[in-house]
């Protein structure tokens, strides 16, 4: 796979839904490319194709609900960062903080119930592990250019179990090619 960073907003009309991310799966036989959008949709598709999301609907649902909860936290965080009025900002921060704490609590319990091996489900890298890492990376590193106060607010709320999840994902050989090129999230939460 390769990544393209289109000129924006010039490339907007060329995208299926005028937005990014977009995944283009090139066909091998000259038939039309398969193109999908929506980050969670792209994630689930790739995860199912490559076995990171189980085929069993119940097992998949337990992982997908974590991702959906993460997305909800992200909506509040994004709303808070972009809000311009004091009252709105305060309300959104409280919502973000409350739901972030819920997420950490839910994940901590899952990790503990799963043998405290730094994994949310099972005993190998899962879809839920990956999307969780991606989210915490946004909260501790990605968001800084929009609001530098977030990491200091989020860090004290992380539990040892969640820290272990982050470390386990970052060190996994399967994603090492990518995490080795990026800022260390483990370093960011230990700083």
């Amino acid at each position, binding site marked *: 796979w390769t990544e393209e960073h289109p000129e924006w907003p010039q490339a907007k009309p060329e995208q*299926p839904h005028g937005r990014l991310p977009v995944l283009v799966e090139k066909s091998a036989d000259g038939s039309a490319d398969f193109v999908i*959008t*929506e980050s969670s949709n792209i994630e689930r*598709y790739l995860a199912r194709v490559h076995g990171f999301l189980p085929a069993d609907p119940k097992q998949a649902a337990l992982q997908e*609900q974590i991702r*959906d*909860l993460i997305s909800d936290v992200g909506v509040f965080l994004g709303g808070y960062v972009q809000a311009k009025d004091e*009252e*709105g900002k305060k309300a959104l921060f409280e919502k973000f903080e409350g739901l972030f704490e819920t997420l950490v609590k*839910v994940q901590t319990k899952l990790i503990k119930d799963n043998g405290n091996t730094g994994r949310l489900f099972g005993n190998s890298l899962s879809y839920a592990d990956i999307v969780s890492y991606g989210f915490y990376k946004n909260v501790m590193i990605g968001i800084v250019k929009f609001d530098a106060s977030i990491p200091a607010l989020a860090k004290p709320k992380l539990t040892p179990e969640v820290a272990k999840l982050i470390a386990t994902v970052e060190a996994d050989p399967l994603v090492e090619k990518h995490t080795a090129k990026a800022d260390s999230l483990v370093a960011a939460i230990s700083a």
Partner: protein
Amino acid sequence: MTIAAETSFVLRYFNVIGRAEGCRMLLTAANANWTEENPEWPAAKEKQPFGRLPVLVEKSGNGDEWIICETGTIERYLARTFGFLPADLKGAAEQEQMSDQHADLTEAFLNMARATRDKEKLVEEFDALLGRMIGEHQKILSRNTCKNHLFGDSLTYGDIAFYTFYKLFIVYMPVYQNDIAGIVKAKMSPEIVALLASIEQEPLLAPHISKCESLAAQLTA
């Protein structure tokens, strides 16, 4: 995929269309044995796994309970379990994409409706997003050979998500912004109106549709 006959479901949500209408329609289309609970709120908040609704409780014949949360997850679980999403991952992704886009649009709408500042810019952005969404519906319908469905030739998750989208914006969202129904209707083509009427007539959906106001009637009024 089939489910044991003794399996029953409880859908917990508020007594509004809100974020559960797709779940209701899927349970109905599945001919599942289900009931709805409208818990006291916020009294019941702490008892829910994520402190939020909707929640789906699946009860097996021996009384065991399996619980999931989050609208999208519940919808996709029901759709997969009862055969309303194809096993083919590409086909499923096309339908799920549309539903995810609806969710984005819902967030953008609520953001705009609640804004006290910079409203004009948000209104413009939302209008563009809405136009693009409806255009997407039109494109999908045009591509499908059968004009009574968005995907394939029988009721799918996609049809239900499509119907729920218009019901949400025309029947429910006016409570947040009273002109939204008119704004949405003005962008709808006759083909989209006809498809909604057709979905509303689906025998599988009758037990739920018969208890609601007709969306089709509101579109032709």
